[in-house]
């Protein structure tokens, strides 16, 4: 071993685990043969002794208790905040999920009711359909009819007011009624006792006066029935 090598690895050869036993022996041999390196090693041993003293004097160094307290406080704060944040996130997700579920159920119900309505429309007899344009008028006129235009007739008629088709065929003009413009009139299907037809001035078979029948009424814009029709059952 040369002096440069001894400088580099020889001083700590006994401690350096990465050196082989052969290298350690070479370092020992060199230190015993070379007075310069032996002096260097002695000098280093003395310095190491002093370093050891320095290390011992600071060996008991510890951080003050306040550091632990500060850290623990910070730990609690941090994990408390994290917990709160986690709860808030979970709550937000739960609310969002509930909203989505409610929307899905509502939509499903709406779809179901739409389908049921469509099926009912398909199943209903063709003459139960009403043109949308006349629907409002029919309701209005029907209401007028029930609100006292013909009290006797309205009272005897059933509360059920049905919608009639808008064909004007087979209507019989009521006695005393004056025919008006078709556009101003509405057809209202009502359910009434046959005897109530007498109030409209029509002849009634007294034996069947209590029988319930469906009648289409042609109601003018004044709310009074102008013509009547007995629809085909």
């Amino acid at each position, binding site marked *: 071993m040369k002096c440069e090598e001894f*400088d*580099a*690895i020889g*001083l*700590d050869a006994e401690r*350096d*685990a*990465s050196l082989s036993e052969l290298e350690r022996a070479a370092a020992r041999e060199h230190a015993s043969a070379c007075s310069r390196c032996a002096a260097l090693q002695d*000098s*280093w041993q003395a*310095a*190491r002794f*002093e*370093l050891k*003293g*320095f*290390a*011992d*004097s*600071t*060996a*008991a*160094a*510890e*951080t*003050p208790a306040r*550091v*632990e307290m*500060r*850290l*623990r406080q*910070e*730990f*609690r704060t*941090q*994990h408390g905040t*994290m*917990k709160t944040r986690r709860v808030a996130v979970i709550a937000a997700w739960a609310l969002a999920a509930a909203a989505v579920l409610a929307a899905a159920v509502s939509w499903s119900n709406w779809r179901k009711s739409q389908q049921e309505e469509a099926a009912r429309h398909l199943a209903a007899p063709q003459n139960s359909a009403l043109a949308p344009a006349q629907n409002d008028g029919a309701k209005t006129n029907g209401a007028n009819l029930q609100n006292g235009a013909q009290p006797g007739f309205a009272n005897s008629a059933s509360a059920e007011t049905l919608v009639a088709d808008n064909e004007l065929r087979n209507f019989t003009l009521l006695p005393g009624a004056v025919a008006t413009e078709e556009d101003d009139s509405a057809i209202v299907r009502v359910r009434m006792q046959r005897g109530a037809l007498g109030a409209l001035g029509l002849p009634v078979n007294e034996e069947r006066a209590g029988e319930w029948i469906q009648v289409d009424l042609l109601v003018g814009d004044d709310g009074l029935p102008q013509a009547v029709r007995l629809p085909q059952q």
Partner: protein
Amino acid sequence: MRIPEPERDDVLLRRAAKGDEDAFTLLYRRHQAAMCRFALRMTGSAWAAEEIVQDVFMTLMRAPKKYDSSRGTLGGYLYGIARNRVMKHLERLPREVSLEQKNEDGSGAGIVLQDPATPAIWAETRERMKHVRAAVLDLPAEFREAVVLCELEELSYEEAAEAAGCPIGTIRSRLHRGRALLLAKLEMLRDVPRRASVAR
């Protein structure tokens, strides 16, 4: 001695990451002294050492998942963090003189020894420690780190390399140069009082 599984550093750290304060406290108590010694020997300031240790454990608390047990020990990882903090501290205050180490007359208080045998020995040892401390603190940071880790902390070269985040060869060469500088400084510091007494 083999540490039981529930008390292993990585297990404790996992528990701490889930909010277990006791696990974190245990980790802190296990490693704080070594971190404090290292920081104190590197900076020469108890105040700085306290700040650095606090910083190290704050970092561990905030990002426990950054530690990968497959890459080394938690101690080595903490040394790495402490080292970075120390280097930052030294860069920021390259010539900081610790106030708490000074007496009222401006002289250094030195190291308080545990067992002063006689006043003469106490004074001599104190003087010697003052020199050693001054010599160590006067080393360039990288060499000082190698000396502190290998000579004062008595870590193996492998452990020192892990803590410093460099290869073993680098630690060896830094230690070699650090020793040479330290020897020169110690010689110089020993000679100053001698020269002063000769002059008198």
